[in-house]
């Protein structure tokens, strides 16, 4: 078998990353770079679709990894065009960083080897440090420094966790066959703890979320869209693989940790978001809360047991997959909607009256907010619906009650934003850039489409068992 087939997307992206870097120096026009990057990512998605399903060198392509590779590529694709307007000089570095980070994302999606995943993950992180510093204002740099320092601390924890994991099961391969002997259980617990802390930072779950609020608020809107969608979903994929597959013979602590963390994350973030006056910070808190819903998947699956053949496991993983896809559009789209405001500090007053200035953008933004709140006919509803369904199906009634009440609390602050959009008079200036508007409207349309395409979900249920690699 010719194993190089598996790596065509990665090779292509690596070459194109350098090409953008080289071509960008004489061109110096961000829109051209954006066009090249967009085309590159689209072509890469097509290559991924044609990559054969096989396994070599620690990389396994199956439907599960293909799905997440494409979802993560979409998150990069999503910002490649709108960000061009705000980059100014030396945009080629930004775009090659974007391409290289999407390379890392594919690797993360496709590997079941802890070391490869770690290296790929770090390559993405480093690229995002570069990207978040763009903008060049004081607040961008501050946010980046915060992001960078917490990121390196997270890295330390992850590598410690990886080491303890190797010590416990004597392999880096994540598989359901890893047996832990009684003697090494304490080291396995340490591995769990360290990996949880490390990836908890990246996922921005309570109490490792503080950096996220400032970082999302401080970076450019497009970059925060990428940070809160791309890197977060990537962390989610890797967390799914590590804790569900790698720890599949050691599930009880996983269940306890994730159940406590998800409850705390949802509740804390939703309550904190209630009192925000800054819309971008509100979206950041809502992003933390969404991560709390997402990790319910881990709680349910580890409670039921991944090999138990229960429907709840398939439903939970599939709803996590579906959530990831919808999340990219609804969260990314809402951060892009912030571009409409011509201020750095997006207070409620700043967005007031958007409904009067550009009704279609305001309507689209409110569709995205409704989707985040989980109101029917949006993708967010369907994702939440099946997620909570699997929680109850797995036998965790009380957890579903908490989650669903949280989701009801969240309605308060999403509705507050919508109130300012529609029934307050305009106070600030709004951007009239057609590209921005188009991106928000497109993402709202996609969110509605995903809410109507019920057929996707059963397909994902069939794929979800391939998570074991």
């Amino acid at each position: 078998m010719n194993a190089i087939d598996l790596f065509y997307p990665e090779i292509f992206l690596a070459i194109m990353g350098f090409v953008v870097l080289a071509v960008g120096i004489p061109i110096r026009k961000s829109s051209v770079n954006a066009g090249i990057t967009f085309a590159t990512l689209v072509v890469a998605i097509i290559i991924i679709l044609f990559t054969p399903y096989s396994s070599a060198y620690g990389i396994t392509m199956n439907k599960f990894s293909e799905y997440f590779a494409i979802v993560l590529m979409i998150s990069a694709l999503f910002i490649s065009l709108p960000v061009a307007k705000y980059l100014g000089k030396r945009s080629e570095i930004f775009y090659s960083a974007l391409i290289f980070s999407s390379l890392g994302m594919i690797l993360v999606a496709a590997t079941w080897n802890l070391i490869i995943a770690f290296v790929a993950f770090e390559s993405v992180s480093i690229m995002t440090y570069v990207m978040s510093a763009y903008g060049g204002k004081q607040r961008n740099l501050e946010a980046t420094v915060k992001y960078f320092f917490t990121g390196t601390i997270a890295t330390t924890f992850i590598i410690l966790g990886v080491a303890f994991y190797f010590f416990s099961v004597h392999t880096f391969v994540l598989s359901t066959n890893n047996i832990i002997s009684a003697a090494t259980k304490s080291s396995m617990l340490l591995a769990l703890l360290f990996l949880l802390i490390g990836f908890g930072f990246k996922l921005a779950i309570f109490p490792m979320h503080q950096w996220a609020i400032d970082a999302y608020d401080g970076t450019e809107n497009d970059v925060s869209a990428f940070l809160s969608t791309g890197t977060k979903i990537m962390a989610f994929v890797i967390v799914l693989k590590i804790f569900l597959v790698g720890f599949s013979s050691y599930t009880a602590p996983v269940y306890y940790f994730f159940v406590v963390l998800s409850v705390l994350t949802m509740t804390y973030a939703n309550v904190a978001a209630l009192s925000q006056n800054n819309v971008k910070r509100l979206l950041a808190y809502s992003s933390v809360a969404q991560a709390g819903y997402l990790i319910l998947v881990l709680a349910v699956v580890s409670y039921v047991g991944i090999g138990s053949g229960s429907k709840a496991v398939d439903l939970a993983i599939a709803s996590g997959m579906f959530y990831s896809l919808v999340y990219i559009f609804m969260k990314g789209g809402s951060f892009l909607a912030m571009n409409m405001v011509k201020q750095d500090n997006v207070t409620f007053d700043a967005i007031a009256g958007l409904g009067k200035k550009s009704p279609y953008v305001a309507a689209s933004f409110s569709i995205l907010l409704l989707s985040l709140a989980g109101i029917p006919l949006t993708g967010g509803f369907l994702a939440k619906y099946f997620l909570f369904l699997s929680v109850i199906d797995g036998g965790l009634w009380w957890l579903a009650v908490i989650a669903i009440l949280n989701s009801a609390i969240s309605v308060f602050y999403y509705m507050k934003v919508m109130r300012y959009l529609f029934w307050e008079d305009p106070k600030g200036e709004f951007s009239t850039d057609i590209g921005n508007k188009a991106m928000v409207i497109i993402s709202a349309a996609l969110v509605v489409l995903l809410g109507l395409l019920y057929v996707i979900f059963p397909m994902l249920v069939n794929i979800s068992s391939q998570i074991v690699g």
Partner: protein
Amino acid sequence: MLAFDILIISIVFGIATFFTGRYAKEVASILSGVLLILIAAFSILRFSTYTGGFVSSYSITISSSIGLYFSVGVSGLTDALLILTGIVMLVSILITGRDYGSAFFGLEMLVEVGLIGLLISRDFLFFYIFWELVLVPVYFMIGRYGRDNKDSISLKFFVYTHIGSVFILLSIFTLYSYSFTYLGGYTFEIGPLMSIVHLLPPFELGFVLFGFLFGFLVKMPSFPIHSWLPDSYYSAPYPATVILAGAISMMGGYGLFGILMEAYKAIPLWVLYFLMVLGIISIIYFALTAMFQRNIKKMMAFASASAMGFVTLSFAASIIESTGSEYSVKLIEASGGMFQIVAHGLIMALVFSALYYISRNAKTDSVYGLGGIYREAPMLASFSLIGFLASLGLPGFAGFIGEFSIVVGVFQAISWYIFFVIFGMIITASYHIWTAQRSLYGPYNENLGFIRDVKAGEFLILIFLVLVIFLLGIYPNLIFHNLVNYTSNVFKVVS
């Protein structure tokens, strides 16, 4: 299949209305009129020889492995409620002033889509989707076009009823998770799922019943989870109040009779007695509260809640004898309760439409601000009086049939405690009459100046409602017959 077509048509109409600009009113009126005609034609075609069960069933399989279907079906109950929805929405659109703009008409059509969808859905996923979908346009109607504290009231309305809905959602999930155990396959369909409720383990049974009851009683609304109601009714613009009172409160009644009733075997006796007490408290408490209102709109809001107390009462009373060894539903209360939902919706549409014209023409809707408007606007005063009389349950009007059959039936279940219900009815009659005397008749309040009477078009809307209410009052069999057939066919019945 026909019912499914009506849903699709309503969705297309609803979306189209948003883009019609300044012709929105004409377009929305015609479209909702067409929908009403379609519903009426459907009812005549399929329900003139109705013998019970569900007709026009149709199912689309989305995924059989996880039990996703989109199935529709119409019963005698849902058909009556569909007609009610059609009439209430048409009236609401017709009385809406042109100055509200096309978005408002679009929102109204969207409410109609949601209502039709939730009535004909026979599976829980789509039932819940449409159930929630109704909330969004109403939120915008109150929040964008309402008065006095509209933003906090609209938010209160949304969050309050949304929390009710999510409890329904939890119950649905619980049932789904047991569907494999008891039915041998996963499904979201309402019929099969409700038939297994009584098999559930005690805790899960309680959980499911609590979720459904909480969700439905919030919508009704029942004491003590009613506090969203007076604010929302008061603050909403009149066309939206018509929708709230005529159609939204119907959702709770439909939930009880159309959904929860199918699991009547599972409801423990003490829950039924508790519901009965809640119903009686609702009737009396809301009637007393209504008596002390100085604003007619608020007064009628409480009157509406009081009338819905009869629905809770009849629901509980109709199955109260079923918890013995013999499972059964008593015909007269059950059908009476269903009839009451329809009658209440129509009457509230009449009352709030008449009040709308009064408050628009007289620029006030306070009881003390009005007075003797019969002198200037005799038509308007007469229509309001008819509305009031129908609302208090005068014989000859639709409201009487429902209340009468409920009282007769309930008497067998609770004997002399029926006194409390009668007491509530007396209070209801007294404050209606008092308000009518105070605001419509008596000496004219000269501060009001000239009050314009209804125009020809407005007259037609009101007379249409009066005729429908009167028709149902003297010939209730038009729908009562179907309700009886439905009840006696679906449930094991003692008459």
